[in-house]
């Protein structure tokens, strides 16, 4: 593990789950600019993921596509193994894949509850667990979990989503203290309203409540993730960086 990559970190790669669009795509571009070979995981949006990868390679970066549902444990292990063989260990992991399935609690079915918890929380734990061993060995690792201000804050109709994101923040803190002395950091970002396909059906009236009077961009969230994933953020761990235009201030 003595070989260093061009950005001064040990040789390895970055994996972004849900990297085909929105925040994940912006993160993939940012980490590629920082010199990481980036693995863009996607579940259904092949065209989107391919477009992001092409943009990165056109700009001189290295990108590879990783198809598959991050909930599937066996597929997940195969993904990591193949990345390790080709690029070295995953040293930056961005758990970004997330879904919503909204409904007021009295009408929120088991299926909607479980699907959201599995994708947003359990899958993030599984990728984290798989990534940590090689990170410990490398004495370097950056895990960034994409949480939400919904979780620490209430949002009617999103009990499942809020539980998953609050869980993610709790997991972030505890995993962070477990591995801190091996130079592996674990942090979260908590975006507010961000302009993506994920939020396109969100009521525009919400903007009036945001002190910045606008939605955020995926790039503004990606910039925070990029910092937390950087070698410079070595003493930041177990924290959640809120990116919400002042909404929770």
């Amino acid at each position, binding site marked *: 593990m003595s070989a260093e990559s061009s950005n001064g970190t040990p040789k390895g790669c970055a994996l972004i789950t849900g990297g085909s669009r929105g925040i994940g795509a912006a993160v993939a571009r940012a980490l590629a600019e920082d010199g990481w070979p980036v693995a863009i995981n996607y579940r259904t949006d092949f065209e989107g993921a391919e477009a992001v990868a092409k943009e990165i390679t056109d700009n001189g970066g290295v990108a590879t596509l990783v198809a598959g549902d991050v909930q599937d444990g066996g597929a997940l292990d195969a993904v990591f193994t193949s990345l390790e063989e080709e690029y070295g260990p995953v040293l930056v992991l961005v758990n970004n894949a997330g879904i919503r399935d909204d409904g007021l609690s009295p009408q929120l079915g088991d299926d909607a509850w479980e699907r959201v918890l599995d994708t947003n929380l359990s899958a993030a734990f599984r990728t984290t667990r798989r990534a*940590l*061993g*090689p990170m*410990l*060995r490398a004495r370097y690792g950056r895990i960034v979990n994409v949480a939400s201000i919904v979780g620490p804050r209430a949002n009617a109709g999103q009990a499942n989503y809020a539980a998953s994101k609050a869980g993610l923040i709790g997991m972030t803190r505890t995993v962070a203290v*477990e*591995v801190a*002395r*091996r130079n592996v950091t674990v942090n979260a970002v908590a975006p507010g309203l961000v302009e993506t396909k994920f939020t396109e059906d969100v009521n525009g009236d919400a903007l009036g409540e945001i002190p910045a009077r606008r939605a955020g961009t995926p790039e503004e969230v990606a910039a925070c993730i990029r910092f937390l994933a950087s070698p410079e953020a070595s003493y930041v761990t177990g924290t959640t960086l809120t990116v919400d235009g002042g909404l929770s201030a």
Partner: protein
Amino acid sequence: MTTKAETGNVQKVIFDGLAEVGAEPDDISREAEFEALDVDSLDLVELAQIVEEEFGVRLEGDDLKGLTTVGQVIDLVVKKAE
């Protein structure tokens, strides 16, 4: 590629791994206890990772519970590899 796990080479990999996670090389022996070597649970996780990379033997969380000496872990790896 993983190596075939036999007592001799497992012992070498585990001794080297313990030194890598900070145990004093002169104190490492089959009889040495992890506590005396100042090897804690995170160090054991890393040792499990080393063993998996080297021999393809996966040590789960419960496997290491109750094991106190280096020799016990060596024997477990050899047994699991059979």
